[in-house]
C-alpha cells in the first residue's frame, strides 16, 4: 500500500512547519506567478532565472528537514518533466523556426525546469504543512466548516482504510483470489472483490461517524469556536515581506530587456 504510505501524515516540527499555512500558501502563489513570468521564447530562452528559482528553494527544504521526501517528489515528477522536455523538443524541432540547435535544447530544458520549479514549491508546501494546520487554515479563511471537517476526517481515515484494504486483500487472497493474473481488463476485474467489502465497510463506518458526531452536538450553533487559532508570528511576517520583495524584484527584472540565454552568456 505504498500509495497510501505517501498520504500518511507525520507530525514533524521545524521552523518551516511552524509557519502559518496561509503565509506559506501566499509564498507558493508568489513563486507560481514569478515562475510563469519567465521562460522566454524559442530564440531567447530564459533558463537562468528558472535555475535561480529552483535553487533558492533548497534552503527551505533543508530548514524543514524534508530532504528525503522532497527528493522523492522530485523523482516522482521526473517522468512528466522528461515528457515536457521531449514534447517541446520534438515539436519545436518539427516546426523548425529555431536559430540554433543549442537554443532549441535550452528552450526545451527551460520549459521542463519551469514545471519542476512549480512542483517543487507545491511539494514544499504540502510536505511542511500538517493536515490539521491545513484544515485550520481553510476554516479561518471562511471555507464552510463542513468542507474543512470533511477534509480532516478524510485524512484521518486514510491509514484506517489502508489497513482495512490490506486485511481484505489478505482475506480474499487466502480464499484463492489472484490479483496479478490475466490481461489488463481481467486484472481490473480482480479488484472488485476487494472494492465491494471496502465500500460496504466505509458506508457502515460513515453511519457510525454520523451518529457519533450528532451525539457530540454537531450543528448546535452557527458560531463554532475552535481549540486552535492561527496567529501570525514574526517569522510569518518575514516570509510575507520576503515573498513581496521577490515579487517586486521579479517584476522589475521583467521590465528590463529579456535575459539573454545561457548559450549566449557562456558563448557556446
Amino acid at each position, binding site marked *: 500500500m505504498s500509495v497510501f504510505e505517501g498520504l500518511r*501524515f507525520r*507530525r514533524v516540527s521545524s521552523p518551516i512547519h511552524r509557519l502559518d499555512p496561509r503565509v506559506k500558501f501566499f509564498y507558493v502563489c508568489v513563486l507560481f506567478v514569478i515562475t510563469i513570468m519567465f521562460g522566454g521564447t524559442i530564440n531567447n530562452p530564459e533558463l537562468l532565472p528558472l535555475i535561480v528559482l529552483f535553487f533558492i528553494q533548497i534552503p527551505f527544504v533543508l530548514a524543514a528537514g524534508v530532504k528525503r521526501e522532497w527528493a522523492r517528489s522530485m523523482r516522482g515528477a521526473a517522468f512528466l518533466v522528461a515528457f515536457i522536455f521531449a514534447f517541446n523538443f520534438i515539436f519545436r524541432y518539427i516546426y523548425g523556426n529555431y536559430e540554433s540547435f543549442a537554443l532549441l535544447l535550452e528552450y526545451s530544458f527551460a520549459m521542463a525546469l519551469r514545471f519542476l520549479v512549480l512542483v517543487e514549491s507545491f511539494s514544499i508546501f504540502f510536505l511542511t504543512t*500538517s*493536515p*490539521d494546520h491545513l*484544515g485550520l487554515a481553510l476554516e479561518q479563511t471562511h471555507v464552510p466548516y463542513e468542507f474543512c*471537517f470533511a477534509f*480532516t*476526517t478524510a*485524512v*484521518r481515515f486514510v*491509514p*484506517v482504510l489502508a489497513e482495512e484494504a490490506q486485511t481484505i486483500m489478505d482475506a480474499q487472497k487466502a480464499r484463492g483470489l489472484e490479483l496479478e493474473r490475466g490481461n489488463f481488463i481481467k486484472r481490473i476485474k480482480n479488484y472488485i472483490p476487494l472494492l465491494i467489502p471496502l465500500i460496504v465497510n466505509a458506508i457502515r*463506518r460513515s453511519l*457510525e*461517524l*454520523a*451518529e*457519533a*458526531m*450528532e*451525539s*457530540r*452536538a*454537531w*450543528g*448546535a*450553533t452557527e*458560531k*463554532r*469556536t*475552535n*481549540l*486552535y*487559532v492561527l496567529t501570525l508570528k514574526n517569522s510569518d511576517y518575514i516570509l510575507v515581506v520576503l515573498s513581496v520583495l521577490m515579487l517586486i524584484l521579479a517584476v522589475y527584472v521583467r521590465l528590463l530587456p529579456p535575459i539573454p540565454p545561457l548559450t549566449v552568456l557562456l558563448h557556446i
Partner: protein
Amino acid sequence: MAVIETKGLTYTYPSGTKRALEDVSITIERGEFVVLTGPSGCGKTTLCRCFNGLVPHFYGGKLEGNVLVTGLNVHEHSIYELARHVGLVFQNPENQLFALSVEKDVAFGLENLGVPRDEMKKRVDWALQTTDIEDLRERAPHELSGGQQQRVAIASVLAMQPNVMVLDEPTSFLDPLGAQRIFEVINELNKNLGITVVLVEHRLDLAARYADHVIIMDEGRVMLDGKPREIFGLEKTRLMGIGIPKSTRLYQVLEKSGVHLSKVPITSEEATQILKEVLNRD
C-alpha cells in the same frame, strides 16, 4: 430524583419488521451505576439511542411512549440539546474519533457548542487528566491502541460535562486488561464526579462489581430490573443466557447442593470472603 425515566417505550426502525423496543418502562436515579445487559439483538443499543434522541430524530420512525432525560422530553428536544446532558460512547472506538489529534477530538463537542476558547482549554485539560491520557494529547488516533482510543472517546464525551454517560459495549473491541482499565475509569467518573452511568455490557464478571442497578432485556422488553445481587442470584437470569459472574454461579451451585451462603457474591473477593466464613464455621 430520576435522571432517566421511560414509560411504555415502543419503537420500530423504519426499515425494520419487528419491534426493536416494546413497552419499556424503566427509571434510573441520579448517581446510579446501571448495567444493562441481554442477548444480542435484544434492543440495548436502540434503548441507548433513545436516551439522547438519536431515536427518533436521527433514525426516523415513530417512537411511542415517553422518555424524560434530565427532565427533558426527548420528543421535544433535538440531539444537540440533549448532548449537553447525555453523553454517548459507542462500541467501536475508531469510528468516534474524527480529528487528527487527541486534544482536538476532545474539544470537538465543545467547539460545536461554541464554548469560548479559554473555557474550552480548561475543560479539555480536565477531561484528559480525569481519564489519565494527558500524555496522548498530541497523538493521532491511528497511533493509539483500542483501549487508548476508547479512553479518548470517553474523555471527549466527558469534556461536555454531561449528567449522564451512556456507554454501549465500550469494551467489546478490547482485551480484558484494556476493558478492566475502562471500567475503572467509568467507575471513577461515577463515584468521584457523581455522573450517572448506563453501561451496556456482556462481561459481567468484570463489570458487575461496579453496578448498583441491573436491567436485563430480551427481545425488546425489560425482563428483569433491580439490585445486582437479587438479579444475578435468580436462576431465571442464567437460563436467559446471561453470562452471570462466576462467583454468583458458584453460589447457585452450592445452594442447589444444600450449602447456604450468607449473601450472594458478585466478585471473586466476596466469594472468597464468604466461603472462608462458611469453612471456618464447620
